[in-house]
């Protein structure tokens, strides 16, 4: 018992660990919520694209002395607009357009970094720097994260209908264009929220894997939201502690914890898991 208290409490003596834990929990929780809609809309690749595209925004924000979040957000939107614009030409398919836009913007970011003197390391932007979270960073993430989560939860029924049946959403008078745009804006905000914890490369993991885990284990959307964001928060907490005690990369450990949850769900989930499906197939074969 004492050992458990010691394991959990000891890291929290340090302010940087408190900040890290708080920022990771908020980011993971919001990612977990948004993830449900991204997975159901088939927008996993879009999450990846927005995350990579914000690199030049971060570099330019530092150059201009504005908050990193602002620069990242602007370039997230630019990416979304470019992808939409290019894929509206009949010749180019959407995944092609995504591939063109995000690699181009990412390359632009790399080129900018190589020319602009900066005190932030490329390493931190790409892979996160959760242990270097300042109080200011923490407040920024808290504000963005809570705002994003609030909008998602308030609009959740409309967004779910959008993902389920676009034509019907249109029929009952909803603006499908506005709802899609809202979801993309929230995607950009969430990416910014999770940047400190996971970095550009791994953000997409927390935008996709929690929702996929929820899909495997749940029959209703409300339950899926809980499993997805609850699982992501668990991965964040356990990942932060494990990385502290075993001296591992924090972002990497968080993602691996989430992947472990996915793996467990993939094998053990009640109806859609590997074992349940195999058992059902055997029963059907025996009955035939």
């Amino acid at each position, binding site marked *: 018992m004492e050992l458990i208290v010691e394991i959990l409490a000891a890291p929290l003596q340090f302010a940087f660990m408190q900040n890290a834990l708080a920022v990771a929990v908020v980011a993971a929780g919001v990612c977990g919520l948004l993830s449900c809609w991204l997975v*159901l809309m088939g927008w996993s690749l879009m999450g990846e694209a927005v995350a990579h595209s914000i690199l030049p925004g971060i570099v330019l924000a530092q150059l201009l002395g504005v908050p990193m979040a602002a620069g990242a957000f602007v370039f997230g939107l630019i990416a979304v607009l470019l992808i939409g614009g290019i894929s509206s030409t009949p010749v180019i398919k959407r995944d092609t357009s995504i591939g063109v836009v995000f690699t181009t913007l990412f390359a632009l970011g790399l080129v900018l970094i190589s020319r602009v003197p900066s005190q932030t390391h490329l390493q931190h932007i790409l892979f996160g720097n959760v242990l270097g979270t300042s109080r200011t960073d923490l407040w920024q993430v808290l504000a963005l994260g809570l705002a994003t989560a609030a909008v998602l939860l*308030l*609009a959740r*029924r*409309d967004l*779910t*209908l959008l*993902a*389920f*049946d676009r*034509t*019907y959403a*249109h*029929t*009952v*008078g*909803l603006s499908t264009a506005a709802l899609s745009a809202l979801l993309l804006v929230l995607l950009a905000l969430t990416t910014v929220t999770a940047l400190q914890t996971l970095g550009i490369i791994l953000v997409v993991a927390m935008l996709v894997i929690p929702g996929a885990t*929820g*899909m495997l284990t*749940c*029959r*209703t*959307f409300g*339950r*899926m939201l809980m499993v997805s964001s609850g699982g992501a928060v668990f991965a964040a907490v356990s990942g932060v502690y494990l990385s502290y005690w075993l001296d591992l990369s924090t972002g990497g450990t968080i993602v691996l914890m989430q992947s472990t949850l996915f793996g467990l769900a993939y094998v053990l989930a009640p109806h859609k898991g590997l074992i349940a499906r195999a058992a059902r197939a055997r029963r059907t074969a025996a009955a035939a």
Partner: protein
Amino acid sequence: MTQAPAAAVEVSGLSAGYPGVLALQGVDLRLTAGTITALVGANGSGKSTLFSALLGLRVPLAGTVRLHGKPPQQARRRNVVSYVPQHDTIDHTFPLTVAQMVMMGRIPHQGPTRRPRRADRAAVAEALEQVGLAELRRRTVGELSGGQRRRAFLARSLTQQAPLMLLDEPFAGVDRGSEELITATLHALRDAGTTVLVSTHHLDSLADLADEVVLLHRRVLAAGPPSAVLTESTLAGAFGTVLADDGGAADSTEDAVGRQEAPWS
């Protein structure tokens, strides 16, 4: 002089499609409130395009569409029109129960966060009862058979309580029991004053179903009571010489699948 009955749908001079490839050309259509109209035509005759235009999903190249006197955009916002989709384009793995799916029809009646109220729950329960799915309300949408899913979509539209209902091929791939239930539901709706437009190419039971028939092949070939429209010569114009094959062959596989299900299971 008696006043003409109010038109629930008024389409005039509607052309739609792409320039050079017109799916609809100069279509005029007028639906009297409180009637069931069957929209009949072969595959590719423009039925789906007409529905898209009525729902405002497609901007016409020429002509106007009015639903209860309003353009489609405005009509949708005021809950004038409900819609039962044709194909199973939905994601069968979507985590949504039948009751939750049917609740989506209540959006026009709900506040900004769509929190269900007592009236919403009552409307959902009543609609599920009406289409015979009350027992299956906790199943997920993917766990339903084809005919059951079609009835679930119908229930969702019923909860909208809109004065105009569009149904795109509701009888394709549906078993006998579901077909009778859908027909009875539509008759009840009509008797309560709702205007119903059904696209179909099942010709045999048309006279029982509809008050009016509109025969479409890129333009309106004939319109009027079933007995007047469903003659050999007009049908030959709509379906060509392969009439017998065309209507049946298009969804024979769907029919075969649909008949395997027990309607009330």
